[in-house]
Structures are given as C-alpha cells and as structure tokens.
C-alpha cells in the first residue's frame, strides 16, 4: 500500500456520463429494482406496462392465458447478449424480437406471442432501458406479435453487460406447411434473401479495439412476413429454411449438410456480399461467410421452382437483393459437406465456425 497516500480523486467515468446538463444524475438501474419488491413493481408499472399496453401482460398474473391456437403450437427461445446493445441498424430490443420471430418463421410457423425476460446490470441507464423497451415493443408490433409475459432480474455491476434479453416465441403451424430436413434432395436450389455478413461486421465495427466506421448496418429484421408471402405465393416450393445467424451462412449450411447427409454447393460468384463487407472482412482477416446475419434466411427450394421463388422474394422489401447461391448435391461420403465453388472454379470445403474469438454478436 506504499504510494497510495495523498491521492486526489476523480469521478468514475461511468458516473460522469450520467450527468445531465442540470447537474442532476441520470437515473440508473439499482440492485433493488430486482428484489421483487416495491422498486420492481414500480419499474413494471412505470416503464414496461407503458410500452406493452395490450393483452395478458397487463393482468400481471404469473402466467398469461392465451386464446386457443388455430394449429399445433410451435415454440422457440433465444437469449440475446449482444455488445454493444445499441448498434448500427438496431438495438438488442429489436434483435430480441427479430431473432425469435425468425426462428419460428423458418419452421413454417406463424408467430403470435412473445415472452420477454430481462437480465439488467446494476448501473444500466434507465434511459437506455426505456429506449430498448420501446424498440422491442415497436418491432413486436411491426412483426404482428404480442408480448404476453415478462420477467426482470437485476445482477450486480460486473455480473452482466448492461442488458441481456431472453425472448420465447409461440406460434402455430398452419396446414400444409410441412417443412423439414427430410424433404431436402439433390437438385434443390439454395436461395438467400440478400447480402451476407452485414450484421456481424456492423457489430464488430463498434467493438473497442476493432473500432472502425462503416456504412454497413445490421440487417436485423423480422422476416415472418417475407416468409409467409413466399409460402403462400409458391405453395410447396420451399422445402426447408434456416436463418443464418451465429456462425453465418457457412455454419448454417454445414448444419443442413450434417442433418441431411447431402452436400451443399455454394457459388462464390453468386453470393451477394456488399463491397463494404468484403473490404472490412479483408482488413479484419475475417470471412463474410462466417459472419452473423440477423435478417437472412437460407431457403432450400425445389430446383425447378427456384426462379419462381426468387421472383417473389425480390418483390418483397426484405428480399430485394435475393439470389440463388447454390445447389444441393447427393452426399458422397458418410458426412454431408459444404463446398464453395471459387471464382476460379475450384472447390473449397466450408466447415463450421471454429473457435473464433469474436463472440457476443447476438
């Protein structure tokens, strides 16, 4: 402890940033907001219920009673731990809705309901929380899903990262929408609804250390409307869908290959990649095919209907840059593989993402 005497004291950085013009400090989440008592109650009443104004949530029961579903239920859950929680093109609230809505939609389901559970870190600015909740509520409305149940916990400073959100989605499977790995066969085409890698790179651009300015924005968006449009306009054409999130297009394709035992061949020259994404990947030493997307789906489509599906996709606002990017081939070995046909015509193998130290992008 030598040398510790006679210090002068500076206000902690994080406290300073909370100062408003009038010198009063901005409100922050305190541990006591999570004790289940009066402050928790106040937070729910004054913040959450302001944005979630309809339905079962307002009743504040332990469970939300929903109306009978018009088909068998489909559920999906995801926790969102992205850093930073505000990013170009969105925020963790929008992402939390889009991510789960998309997971439901790619199964062919119509998403209807969402539960939302927050893990807040002591010290989170109340203003940040409010803007995230507002964004979440707005995205839910746009996607046509209702937030029906919620939960809030608070963890000590240094045990979280501002805010983590879990959403669980509930939908139903309309008739005649049976999609599945088992329907995939050689000759099917692989489609995607736009450019690859934008989300992951937009997030990375805001990481301390990697910081760079880019025009790239996260593609984060709920795709249930796009998907429903395709399924309705091209009945039977789509055999399987999966959103290419963590691990990117390459990992998602590999998962399909593993599950089916088929090979997936992707064409490098047809992959829609923004120039900015290619450029940023180059100086970061990364591959856009492994970068997370939050508004992109791989569609496996019956070969002779690929063009028809492509046209429908391109008409939709969230599919304007859609492309046919590859084809399914008979698996030639025990395990299914993903191959990339390069510009020069040679083939390279795409594996799952393996241990890249770049987490927290969703």
């Amino acid at each position, binding site marked *: 402890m030598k040398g510790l*005497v006679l210090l002068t004291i500076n206000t902690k950085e994080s406290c300073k940033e909370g100062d408003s013009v009038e010198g009063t400090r901005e409100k922050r989440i305190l541990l006591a907001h999570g004790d289940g008592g*009066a402050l928790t109650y106040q937070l729910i009443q004054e913040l959450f219920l302001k944005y979630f104004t309809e339905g079962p949530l307002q009743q504040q029961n332990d469970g939300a009673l929903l109306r009978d579903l018009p088909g068998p239920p489909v559920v999906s859950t995801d926790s969102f731990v992205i850093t930073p929680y505000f990013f170009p093109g969105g925020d963790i609230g929008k992402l939390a809705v889009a991510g789960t809505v998309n997971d439901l939609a790619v199964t062919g389901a119509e998403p209807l309901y969402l539960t939302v559970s927050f893990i807040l870190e002591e010290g989170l600015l109340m203003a940040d929380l409010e803007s995230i909740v507002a964004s979440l509520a707005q995205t839910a409305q746009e996607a046509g899903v209702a937030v029906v149940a919620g939960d809030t916990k608070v963890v000590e400073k240094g045990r979280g990262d501002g805010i983590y959100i879990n959403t669980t989605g509930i939908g139903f499977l309309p008739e005649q929408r049976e999609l599945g790995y088992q329907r995939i066969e050689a000759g099917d085409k692989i489609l995607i609804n736009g450019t690859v890698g934008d989300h992951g790179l937009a997030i990375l651009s805001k990481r301390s250390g990697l910081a760079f300015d880019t025009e790239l924005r996260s593609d984060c968006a709920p795709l249930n409307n796009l998907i429903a449009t395709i399924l309705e306009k091209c009945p039977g054409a789509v055999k399987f869908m999966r959103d290419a999130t963590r691990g990117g297009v390459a990992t998602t394709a590999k998962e399909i290959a593993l599950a089916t035992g088929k090979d997936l061949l992707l064409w490098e020259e047809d992959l829609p990649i923004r120039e900015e994404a290619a450029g940023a990947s180059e100086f970061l030493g990364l591959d856009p095919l492994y970068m997370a997307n939050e508004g992109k789906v791989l569609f496996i489509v019956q070969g002779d209907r690929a063009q028809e599906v492509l046209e429908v996709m391109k008409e939709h606002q969230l599919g304007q840059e859609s492309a046919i990017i590859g084809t399914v081939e008979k698996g030639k070995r025990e395990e299914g593989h993903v191959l990339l046909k390069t510009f020069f015509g040679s083939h390279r193998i795409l594996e799952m993402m393996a241990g890249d130290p770049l987490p927290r992008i969703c």
Partner: protein
Amino acid sequence: MLSEQLKRFREPQLAKETIVKVKKSLQALQTYQGHKAIFMEFCGTHTAAFSRTGLRQELKEYVTLLSGPGCPVCVTSAQDVDRIIAFSQIPQAIIATFGDMVKVRGSEMTLQEAKACGSDVRIVYSSLEALEIARENRERPVIFIAVGFETTTPTAALTLTKAIEEGIDNLFLYSLHKATAPALKALLHSELTTTDKRSTNIDGIILPGHVAIITGRKCWDFVVQESKIQATISGFEALDLLLALEDLTQGIMNQHDQVGNAYGRAVSEAGNIVAQQAMEQIFELQGGDWRGLGSIPQSSYKLKKEYAAHDAEKAFTLPALPESKGSSCQCGDILKGIKTPLQCPLFAKSCDPVHPQGPCMVSHEGTCATYYKYERKL
C-alpha cells in the same frame, strides 16, 4: 438451561400477562404525575422493538413513547455521506460498509448509486469481513465505513488491532463512530429542557441496552443526577421492554437517584473492560456533527494520530466537497424527540422507504422507517 429462560423473555403469554400489570403501574404513574407519561427510547433498536411487538400501540393510552437519536446511520451527516462517496471514487478502492449505509443520500447521491456507476462497494455484517476483504485484495485499498455507537466501536478497534498485527496495511477506517452519552447530554441540556415540559418534554428515558453492555450501567447515572429525569437500561425482547417500563415507572414514583438496570442478564455495573480499553487504545473523542442535532463536543470517535496510516481521512486527500443543500425533511426534530414522523408533512406521502427523503426513513431502525412499517394510520 439459559436457552429456556431466554425463550421465556419472548413468550407472548408471559408478556400478555405482564402488560396488564404494566398498564396498572402506568396508570398509577399518571395519577402520581398528573399527566400521561412521556418516555423516550434513545435507541433505534428499541424504537423498532416497541413497534414490531405492537407494544407502542398496545400501550398508547397509558404512555407516549417518543423516539430518540439512537440510529447511527440516521445521524450521519450529509457531508460525511459525501465523503464516503468520494472515497468510493478512489481508483481500485473497495468500500466495505454495513447495508443501511448504501441507501443514505448525501448532498447529491447515495452509495448504492455510486455502486451502480462502478464503485466497488461491499456490504458487510462485521468489520472482520472488511479485514478479510483487505487480506484477499492486498493491492487495493479497502476502506471500512465505521459507523455505530459504543457497541460497534470496540469491534472496529479490535479488528484494526488485528489488521496491524497481521501487517494488513491496505485496510483503512473512515470512523464515523459516535458516543451516545454526549448526545443524550446535549438533548437534555438544550432543546428538551427549554420547551414546555408538559407538551414535548419527557418523564423518563429508556437507555440503550447494548451500548450499556460496553459502557456499564453506572456511567449513565449522570442522567438522573444532572437532569433529574429517570432512566432505565432495557433489553430488546417484548418482556424486556415491559420490565423496563415498569422499572422506569417505579423509579419515577420512588425517586430513585440511580439509573435502573432492567437488562441485568447482559449489563453489568462497569461494562466490558476489554472493549473499553480497545476503544481507548485506538480512538479519541472529538467534536462531531450529528444529522439533526448539529455539532456535539466530544461525541465522535476518531482514530488517534498513531493510526494515521489506517485512517482514511489522513491517507487520502479528498477534493473539496460541495455544501449540503437544505431539505424539508424533519429528521432533526424527530431525532430530538420533538416530533414524531406522523407530524412530518412528507411522511408516507413523498417520503417512504422506496423514496426516502431523510436518513430516518432509510435505516432499518430509523424512526420514520419504523413508523412507516408499523405505526402508520390507515
């Protein structure tokens, strides 16, 4: 078995019978004095005990029980809270503090808000835990916010002694310890004796039982001898409180010239000598600011010069702190027993435990918090 006897002290049945007797005595006292008696419990733990057991309500037609300044958190001044928050801004510093302290507002913010901004604040139940934290974080200054009365002061003194023995040089004390007797003296000699005895003045004082364990009974005789107000030391079980009321009643009617001891199983004449010596070894009395009461001479335990290396006030230079702002909180009058919380216009309106306006609403044993929890009229 002592444990069986201890249980007897909290048995509802025995207490219920005792209430009947105590009510009779209090009636006799009213006849004797010509007015309903007004007693003050000095100690916040007594304030809470009278309310939690329901005895304050149960006896309200027989005796008015006022609350005194006996909550160490409540009497910590806003400036001292500002200093605590400033300490929490020292790079790498760990603040170790009792839980109630984190919720008290200084002139601008609370320690729990500083924590939310990134200060490392650890809630402890004992100064020994602060020592443990210092032991485990030898590269970081650990500042123990030492609040409390004579009950707590020797524990901090002994912990510091141990730290020094072990060569733990990164443990610092910010001593806000206060001495109760000077505060009681100040109360008796100023406001209380100059106001109309019939309305806000008090007929008897219930003295803090755990403080008296350390100080001993006899050092309190000055109360009776100097101010002619009767006083009795009390324990904290329902039966203890009743016995103390009875003892006080008898003391007034029989004009005892000594302070009574209704907590004989714990409080001796001379007190705990080890504890007294430990306090004397480490601390010296200086003038100190009490929230609500103002400055009281010889009421504040500060570390002696020899321990400057462990004295947070000496080891760290704090920036100039802003003046505290005024507030319409009536804690001052409440701590003096001039008002009850029910007389504060903010009470249970803009001031409640979730949004406390003053320290009396913050601490578990603050008078306003106790009244909010137990005594509110619905």
